[in-house]
């Protein structure tokens, strides 16, 4: 198993290097950090030179990434020009903020989706199932920005005092009081939960229905296994196998920052930072976030593979 994990990690390194190289070239090629300075030359020669140095603009476009790789190997991911902080600091601080909404959103969302899937799968094509399927269809059709705006307006107007949210008055205001923090987390997390549950529960329902139709479920019933045990032991264990991969993807995506939702609720997570970095041609921050999300994706995929192997004895790591 250890050998398997090592092999998997090593296999992704060249891919990541190529991706980072291309991203670096792409960002450098599409954006011009000097745009503002060109107009005022030669008056602002000092600022111009400073930018040239910060962005290594005197180095050829195709060679520029190597400077970055060199320092990155030493653990230095550079400095964000737009936010004026070291990239590692930003990733850490913003990552924690993102995790504050990502972790509850993932946990609650996954559990709710699983419960709804089981509910639907146990009574397919009944009223209850149709109602849930209909709701998930509707939820799934909502782009997250529409969902976020609708929730914000609905809850901010209806329960304004409770949530204290006004448009442009959202975000993480304090970190001191748990209740206050929970209140600030609530709306962005709820948005992610609704959108996520809508997508996951349809997948979960299909997986659970397929499992409940398997021959071994009939065998279990023929043995006299109580229906509860049939569902929660015999079926669930099998239905979880495809879900684990989905969860890994979801969680790594959420932890890399929900760009739209965090931006709308002015949540100071990785998402808005990513938008800023793109808008400001902040190469180092762009690369930092790309690395961050790539590492998360690889890590969670590995976790999923390991769980896969634990759940399904047919999988072997070799």
């Amino acid at each position: 198993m250890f050998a398997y994990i090592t092999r998997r990690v090593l296999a992704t390194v060249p891919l990541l290097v190529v991706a980072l190289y291309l991203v670096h070239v792409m960002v450098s090629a599409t954006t011009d950090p000097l745009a503002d300075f060109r107009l005022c030359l030669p008056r602002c020669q000092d600022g111009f030179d400073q930018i040239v140095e910060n962005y290594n603009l005197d180095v050829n476009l195709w060679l520029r990434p190597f400077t970055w790789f060199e320092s990155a190997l030493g653990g230095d991911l550079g400095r964000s020009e737009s936010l004026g902080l070291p990239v590692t600091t930003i990733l850490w601080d913003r990552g924690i903020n993102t995790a504050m909404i990502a972790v509850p959103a993932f946990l609650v969302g996954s559990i709710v989706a699983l419960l709804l899937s089981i509910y639907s799968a146990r009574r397919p094509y009944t009223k209850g199932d149709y109602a849930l399927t209909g709701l998930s269809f509707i939820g799934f059709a909502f782009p997250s920005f529409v969902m976020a705006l609708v929730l914000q307006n609905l809850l901010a107007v209806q329960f304004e005092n409770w949530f204290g949210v006004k448009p442009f008055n959202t975000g993480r205001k304090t970190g001191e009081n748990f209740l206050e923090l929970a209140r600030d987390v609530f709306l962005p997390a709820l948005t992610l939960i609704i959108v996520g549950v809508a997508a996951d529960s349809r997948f979960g329902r299909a997986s659970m229905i397929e499992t409940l139709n398997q021959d071994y479920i009939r065998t279990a019933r023929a043995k006299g296994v109580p229906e509860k045990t049939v569902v929660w032991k015999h079926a669930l264990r099998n239905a979880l196998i495809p879900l684990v991969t989905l969860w890994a993807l979801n969680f790594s995506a959420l932890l890399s920052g929900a760009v739209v939702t965090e931006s709308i609720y002015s949540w100071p997570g990785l998402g808005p930072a990513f938008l800023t970095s793109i808008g400001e041609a902040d190469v180092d921050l762009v690369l930092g976030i790309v690395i961050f999300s790539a590492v998360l994706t690889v890590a969670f995929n590995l976790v999923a593979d390991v769980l896969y192997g634990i759940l399904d004895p047919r999988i072997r790591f070799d």
Partner: protein
Amino acid sequence: MTAPLLKVDHLTVGFPSKAGVVGAVTDVSFEIHPGEVLAVVGESGSGKSVTALAVMRLHSKSTHISGSVMFNDTDLLALPEDQMRAIRGRDIAMIFQDPMTALNPVFTVGMQIVEAILLHHHDMTKQKAWERAVELLDMVGVPEPRRRAAQYPHEFSGGMRQRAMIAMAISNDPKLLIADEPTTALDVTVQAQVMEVLHEVKRATGSAIMLITHDLGLVAGSADRVQVMYASRLFETGSIDEIFYESRNPYTRALLDSIPDLEGTKDELHPIPGNPPSLLRPPAGCPFRPRCSMAIELCREQTPALIQIANSHASRCHRADELAVLAAGAPA
């Protein structure tokens, strides 16, 4: 004659579908006596497996079901679910067609047998149940049972899995064992071995067996009585000799004709022409009429009743009496 172990009366099973109710079993009555092997024969879709699932009450909730299934004087169809569950696996156990899919892939074979034992022996320790599982695997001819019990189903071959299924089914000494096409999914050589295990089990435990199969050849050496089903109905029922040598039903005869003969005494195979009828919109009259070589005008107008021919022999055919004459000269 002893009291029947299982007495099925006027069993009718229908599946609702968008286009109407599909009649999967129509007015089927039969008995199984303790220690007896009853073979239920028919093409796929004839209702034989549905009958078995109805006896076990394993059909889905939306299924329409009527009639009665008396097991030791208890009507299974009227039993509350928790009491029915106590009977499943303890008094009536079932072996399914495809051993590749009938075992749960994520639990060890031993654990699945242990679960079956513990469900009906609440006071037994897990260790004792495990010992019993190993014994059972040994009994059905799984080599190295102790090691094999700790393995997962995918590490078993098809024949070994079916043996494990049998071990699981007999773990509570059931009075009735329902084997639904137990050998269909297996290689020919393995089929014989599995049938041998079933016979062994019957000798050792004395349980009655309801053997469901489409293969009349399999029936010849193993059953006491045979009942032939066609298009959801019972077509003929009788002792093994009555069915094989004195059949009074054209469908049974056609089935017998279609058995390949290993000795090669038959010059050609006679497959039954056409397909079984739609169960959604069954034709008027005898359901076998469109494929029957002996059909007459009456067959188109009237569904024949099951006619008693001898004590244990009955046939559903308007011309059952005429067939008695033909029987003497019929090619066996």
